[in-house]
């Protein structure tokens, strides 16, 4: 992590351009491939990985207990059958959506600012979806029967309930994980070839050689490659919207007040992009500082990401207002009570913290100073992520714990196993992410070269 030497092109150059001036094909290729091949393992990276592995071990323990003893070790009961598990599931999937949006949607919109951030954002997506996928498995009462969800011809002639959003989830999340993985790997291919060509040790050359499939940069190959990338981007964009919509349907099919609402699909998708961009910022800001990437992930990127966060935050705020308004305007006593209970009931503190984190906090981003000061932006991104977790918690728990008939009301109190499972997934996520930044180029090198070329052409056109 601490480089042995820094040439002057990696010196801190804070710029508001999309790419720091003075970069060439060689400088961008070498800086990023050096991070993988040349730089020594820093103590910061090792310490971070060790911490993440510790949390991963805790996850192992927590999941082991849940699988052997049962979901009763969590705080769930009747009426609150879904607690932290589904909160975490929706939170992690939501985080994943920003990565795909950056890779896919911004490619279709031909936005240059996606170039430096899309590789690690897409990696973030894959790791987030991997963490999310643990929860549907773990929260089952009989996890050894998980395969009942899969459509195979069984001896009883039965099939999964294809009309259920819980089964739609199985297909949506699996598709999302697979497509993200495949998109990410496709993007990596030429960069793995760069690493193969620059590797000094024979074993490193062989490993990168195998995974790069012998890519040699032939013109026809590039043409097909670009077409494939564009197709994948076009396919992934509706996928992002559909996956979180299907996740929101998990709630909307329920009849309880606060769940049975048509506002959920757009509300959830906006919330997903909101928390996702917050996570991208949480990752980007330390990465650019400790790996001297200020020339690649510039002030402009931070500015744009902050603006996207603000915009989606406003959509989420609008959704809250609308939800509240419709609850009262509907005249339905149960919907009205659901809202009153959120604001004044036993979980009121959680609710108002959520309102502060998601609505008030990000309004700071209207100020340019906040958008362009990395550590302030970092704090805001953490606040937003906390807020979004609390939002999922409030939606699930407050609607479940007090629904139609008071005799069926109850309370949910999280247990230590709830917390351990959640923090453990943070461990899984960061372990994977630390390994990623060590062994793979965290910025898309070939796309950066293309950006250098475009910038050179622009400069050429301006000077004529």
């Amino acid at each position, binding site marked *: 992590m601490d480089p042995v030497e820094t040439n002057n092109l990696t010196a801190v150059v804070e710029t508001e351009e999309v790419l720091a001036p003075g970069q060439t094909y060689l400088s961008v*290729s070498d800086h990023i491939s050096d991070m993988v091949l040349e730089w020594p393992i820093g103590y910061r990276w090792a310490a971070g990985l060790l911490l993440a592995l510790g949390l991963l071990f805790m996850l192992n323990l927590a999941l082991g207990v849940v699988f052997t003893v049962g979901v009763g070790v969590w705080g769930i009961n009747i009426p609150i059958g879904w607690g932290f598990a589904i909160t975490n599931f929706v939170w992690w999937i939501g985080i994943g959506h920003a990565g795909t949006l950056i890779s896919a949607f911004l490619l279709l919109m031909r936005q240059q600012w996606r170039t430096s951030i899309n590789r690690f954002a897409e990696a973030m997506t894959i790791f987030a979806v991997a963490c999310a996928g643990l929860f549907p498995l773990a929260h089952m009462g009989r996890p050894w029967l998980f395969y009942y969800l899969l459509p195979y011809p069984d001896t009883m002639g039965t099939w999964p309930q294809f*009309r259920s959003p819980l089964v739609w989830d199985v*297909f949506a999340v699996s598709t999302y994980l697979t497509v993200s993985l*495949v998109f990410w790997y496709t993007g990596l291919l030429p960069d793995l070839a760069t690493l193969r060509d620059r590797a000094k040790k024979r074993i490193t050359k062989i490993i990168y050689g*195998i995974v790069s*499939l*012998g890519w040699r940069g032939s013109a*026809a190959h590039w043409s*097909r490659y670009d077409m494939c990338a564009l197709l994948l981007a076009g396919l992934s964009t509706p996928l992002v919207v559909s996956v979180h919509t299907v996740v929101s349907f998990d709630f909307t099919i329920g009849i309880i007040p606060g769940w049975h609402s048509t506002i959920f699909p757009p509300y959830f998708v906006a919330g997903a992009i909101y928390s996702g961009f917050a996570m991208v910022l949480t990752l980007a800001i330390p990465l650019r500082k400790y790996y001297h990437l200020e020339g690649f992930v510039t002030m402009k990127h931070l500015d744009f990401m902050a603006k996207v966060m603000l915009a989606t935050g406003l959509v989420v705020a609008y959704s809250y207002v609308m939800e509240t308004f419709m609850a009262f305007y509907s005249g339905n006593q149960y919907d009205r009570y659901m809202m009153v209970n959120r604001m004044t009931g036993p979980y009121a503190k959680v609710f108002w913290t959520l309102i502060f984190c998601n609505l008030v906090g990000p309004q700071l981003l209207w100020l340019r100073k906040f958008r362009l000061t990395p550590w302030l932006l970092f704090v805001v991104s953490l606040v937003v992520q906390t807020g979004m977790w609390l939002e999922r918690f409030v939606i699930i728990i407050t609607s479940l714990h007090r629904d139609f008939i008071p005799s069926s009301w109850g309370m949910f109190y999280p247990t230590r196993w709830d917390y351990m499972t959640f923090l453990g997934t943070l461990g899984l996520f960061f372990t994977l992410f630390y390994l990623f930044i060590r062994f793979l180029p965290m910025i898309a090198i070939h796309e950066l070269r293309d950006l250098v070329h475009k910038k050179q052409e622009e400069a050429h056109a301006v000077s004529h």
Partner: protein
Amino acid sequence: MAEFVTPEQVVATAHSVRAEGYRHIDAYSPFAVEGLPEALGKQVGRKLSAIVLCGGLTGCCGGFFMCWWPNVIGYPLNIGGKPFNSWPAFIPITFELTILFSALSAVIGMIALNGLPMPYHPVFNAPNFDRASRDRFFLCIEASDPKFDLRETRDFLESFDPVEVTEVES
């Protein structure tokens, strides 16, 4: 094999080489260069589109069929008299499988049509070819080309002012 510094050079050279009558040519670059496949006379793309379309249609029809058959033929359940072919409820799965199959066929199709994995190729023997994945652009005229002559082709390429012209053993 001629090595160039800018993408414009390699595109211009490719045009001239093709105009001269060479056909077995290829170019190698560290990123996709606009206009290069056309300059080389290569038509790319229609097969991939067809593969992706077929994949998508397979996913769509297969997905819908997977939902439809058990609920209509295999094990229909009378739930309050609701229709067996509840097609709106089958849409999410159908959509997801369409995307999944299209994406997988795009990637596998692209890799397969590119002839990959191909861990060994003669061009890797070219000196300095590792620059092809970093910052240099290479144009290669293959010996299988009918117009190929070791001396003439070499002089011809030298006329375009490359960094270097080398011979590559296959």
